[in-house]
């Protein structure tokens, strides 16, 4: 990204080729005076002095998929929930607390449930959940 930015930061430098598909001419009549850079966008001048930006849709990280079984499903009324988290995720215990706060009927069930993240049991709800993780709530088992 830095190299691309360097390439467009100076109007004297020509753009290598039109093969830079996301580049978009915004308005060639208005000449902005600074180059702005942020996570999802960078901008500068093209070879003929036009203002170029590369825009990417601001994409939010994928949510945590929460799978609910047996009494947990009954308490919430859904088999699956999506829980939005930031790019760095969040502590598992915090997420469970938030789930319990949103669904009070789930609280007593969480106390006796096993919690799995991506299929692995997490005793004590330690660690973090990351964007896109699968979190499963397992109430006490009743097979056989």
């Amino acid at each position, binding site marked *: 990204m830095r190299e691309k930015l360097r390439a467009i930061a100076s109007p004297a430098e020509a753009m290598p080729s039109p093969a830079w598909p996301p580049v978009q001419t915004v308005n060639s009549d208005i000449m902005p005076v600074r180059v702005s850079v942020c996570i999802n966008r960078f901008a500068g001048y093209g070879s003929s002095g036009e203002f170029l930006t590369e825009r990417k849709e601001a994409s939010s990280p994928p949510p945590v998929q929460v799978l609910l079984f047996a009494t947990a499903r009954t308490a919430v009324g859904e088999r699956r929930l999506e829980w939005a988290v930031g790019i760095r995720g969040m502590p598992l215990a915090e997420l469970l607390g938030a789930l319990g706060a949103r669904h009070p009927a789930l609280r007593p069930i969480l106390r006796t449930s096993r919690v799995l993240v991506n299929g692995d049991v997490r005793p004590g709800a330690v660690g973090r959940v990351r964007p896109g993780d699968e979190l499963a709530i397992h109430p006490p088992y009743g*097979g056989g």
Partner: protein
Amino acid sequence: MSVRLSPRPLSLPAACRELDTPGPGGFVVFVGRVRPDRVPGGRVVALVYEAHEAPALRELAKLETEARRQFGAQRTVAWHRVGRVRVGEPAVIVGAACAHRREAFAAASYLIDELKARVPVWKEERARPGRPPRPRRAPTRGRSAG
């Protein structure tokens, strides 16, 4: 070694065939069936089983490995139904083929006990409303039927 979560009926003859090889001295099979228990809503007519499939299969496979190590089981089955299972139908079949009977009984017992404790499977009762059970009366002497 055979593990299974099946939406279709479990077959006892198929489980026996799985265990029946000339090597081991014998095999033990346990079949768990749905009981027609009385419940507040009437009488149980079926149980609906659900499983978290991937962890359940992984745990069943672990149980089989443990049965092999601890009891010398040469063949095992650990099958569980999912979905609706009517009264009288098998919901679970476990079995172990070992050199001697004591190990075979111990392995089968270990498999069913651990399965119930560790495998993520749940059941929900389906009951048919019925009349509440009649209060029992002491038998009357000297009166014939009819």
